[in-house]
């Protein structure tokens, strides 16, 4: 194996935890619903923005909720149904909630910033915590709770925390939820298109996780001073060495990130003893990206281990998820 340790930054170490079992999946994205929509999207000509339709959820509970809250609740509902659970099973202290997002507050913030006539009904929804908050209220969840802000790496962090909570016996199940909405602020995000892959994809993704069979997952991340090479080479090499050791994953899913990290990652993987299959997300789904890729891998019973990689700003993160996926 030709490691890049000679140029990699020293001191990047992986954190390990028993990998959970993916009991249920709920996906609503600009590509469509469910994991099959992601597979269909690969290879298609990208647009600039793929918006997701607002789900129609009835009832008084969601009367005031924003689009991002409705997407979140619909994704959780879909994951619960796929797991064969009654929604009441989520209620109480034994369900944990981990939420990740880079953007699912921007629309509410903009509306409140621009509309001086905004009412009391609007302001609470400017907080990112309103999205998981509405979910916990709707489903009666009172367990451990954490909201991480950022793109794909935030979702990888969330998956690791979920594994820790389950391994520690703090919870019986964890919802790892990501929501991204940018349609209402596209005039701003459109200007920054050099920062992400195209298309930018809205969505809500939820994985319902339960204790797994004991095989470990590994998570590591590092920060580059700049995302261009050779800085990216050093960071990517160190992170991949930390999560993979001498091993090679069966498949690499590049979930989100910038071109600089992508090129560095390709070079680092080419130096490994075996060349893994590389699946690149057909767009930038930000925090939803890793959850979409895991969901799709599970749906087609892909062999593991799976290496999920994601970049956001100057952060490059990787999480190695062992078999079995289903």
């Amino acid at each position, binding site marked *: 194996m030709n490691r890049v340790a000679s140029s990699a*930054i*020293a*001191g*990047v*170490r992986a*954190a*390990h935890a028993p990998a959970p079992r993916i009991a249920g999946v709920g996906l609503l994205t600009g590509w469509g619903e469910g994991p099959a929509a992601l597979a269909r999207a690969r290879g298609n000509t990208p647009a600039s923005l793929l918006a997701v339709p607002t789900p129609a959820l009835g009832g008084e509970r969601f009367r005031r909720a924003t689009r991002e809250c409705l997407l979140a609740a619909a994704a959780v509902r879909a994951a619960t149904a796929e797991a064969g659970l009654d929604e009441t099973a989520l209620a109480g*202290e034994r369900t944990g*909630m981990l939420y990740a997002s*880079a953007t699912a*507050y*921007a629309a509410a*913030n*903009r509306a409140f*910033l621009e509309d*001086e006539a*905004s*009412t*009391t009904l609007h*302001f*609470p929804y*400017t*907080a*990112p*915590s*309103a999205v*998981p*908050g*509405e979910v*916990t*209220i709707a*489903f009666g*969840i*009172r*367990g*451990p*709770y*954490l*909201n*991480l*802000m*950022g793109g794909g790496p*935030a979702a990888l*962090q969330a998956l690791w*925390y979920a594994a*820790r909570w389950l391994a520690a016996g*703090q919870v019986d199940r964890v919802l790892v939820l990501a929501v991204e909405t940018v349609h209402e602020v596209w005039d*701003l*995000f459109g*200007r*920054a298109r*050099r920062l992400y892959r195209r298309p930018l994809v809205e969505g809500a993704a939820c994985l319902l996780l339960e204790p797994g069979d004991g095989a470990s997952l590994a998570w590591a*991340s*590092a*920060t580059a*001073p700049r995302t261009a090479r050779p800085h990216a080479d050093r960071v990517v090499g*160190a992170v991949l060495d930390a999560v993979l050791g001498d091993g090679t994953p069966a498949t690499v899913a590049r979930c989100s990130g910038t071109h600089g990290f992508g090129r560095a990652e390709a070079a680092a993987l080419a130096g490994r003893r075996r060349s893994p299959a590389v699946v690149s997300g057909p767009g930038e789904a930000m925090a939803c990206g890793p959850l979409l890729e895991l969901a799709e891998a599970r749906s087609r019973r892909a062999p593991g281990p799976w290496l999920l990689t994601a970049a956001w*700003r*100057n*952060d490059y993160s990787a999480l190695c998820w062992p078999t079995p996926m289903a």
Partner: protein
Amino acid sequence: MSPRAAEPVAVTGAGVVSPIGQDLDAFWAGLVTGVSGIAEIERFPVADLRVTRGGEVKKLHRVAELTHDARLPACRASRFLIHATREALAHAGLAADPPEPARLAVVIGTALGGIDDAARALRGDGGVRALCGSLYDGPTWNLARWLDTEGPVLTVSTACASGATSLGVAAELIRAGRADVAVAGGVDVLCRFVQRGFNVLRSLTRDQVRPFDRRRSGILLGEGAGIVVLERAACAAARGRAPLGWLLGHASTADGAHITAPDPEGRGLALAIRQALGEAGLGPDSVEFVSAHGTGTPANDRVETDVLKRVLGPRAYAVPVNSIKAHLGHTMGAAATLEAIMCLLAGRHGQLPPTLNYGESDPHCDLDWVPNEARRHRPRVSLSTSLGFGGCNAALVLAAA
């Protein structure tokens, strides 16, 4: 301590920016002498709002020496973070001898993120840089760049509990071997966006902030940053550094009750306290001091009182409890970190800062609130509680060195 306890994490440094002081000494002196940073807001227009006062940082000291640094961002929240981090690193003895970049984590909690830059981005000012800065993780990344870290960089937002959650998350990174040192804390700025928001919610009081007092009628907002340096105990010992104290336990939980109000039964908060004590390997009998969220709203203070009685049992009446919201205003994402620092300083100095503006007892809120005057008491183990929008709760268990 029980054998099931998590590894204690050393707190080797702290730094603050607050309406009552911009270093630890001034902050502590203001707390114990009962200084209030609440005044008329001057930095943005408030004349059309019901309430025009808050805990504003009128002028960020030492900004002149910072502005020579090309990496200094324009964002106010980022400047608060950098200012507090400089002090925390110096306090930890790491300013001249920084940790290995890949072993340094940055974990920041915030309720508002880069909201100042969001306003600029919407006006079309600042280009892509303003857009990047306006995201919730914008200030965290500005700090990470200033620190030249190569380690994990995380932003958490559990609303006004963020400054506690960030400390717990950072401690977990250290315990899991992802970092040896973490710069962790919370930040938020007082701006028209949030002042107008709480104004329309009618949560702001025209009176004084009066935590746990029968006449309490709401909050006043504040701004600031609190930063602590967390380290693996062995690292601190190897450097010969005596810690300020220890982070023994943390938990963050959901209420699942209401988008703005606390669960009337406080079940989520009670769970957070029990889990944080569990992580610390301690029972409720070990708690010698409580730093309450104590916003001064009728609902928050009643729920917190009930929860403390339920979790601490009959001892709740014997444990001193304070709130420093009347000193600072509610500093949102910074609040819980500033309160954690206060707990550690109380252990060091053997003195408890008072709950200001307390005059009339509420039969429902009948604990020992350390009213109006600082008290001689050296808590070995402190509990700090926080709540936030979206039903966020957090608890920290801290020990004096």
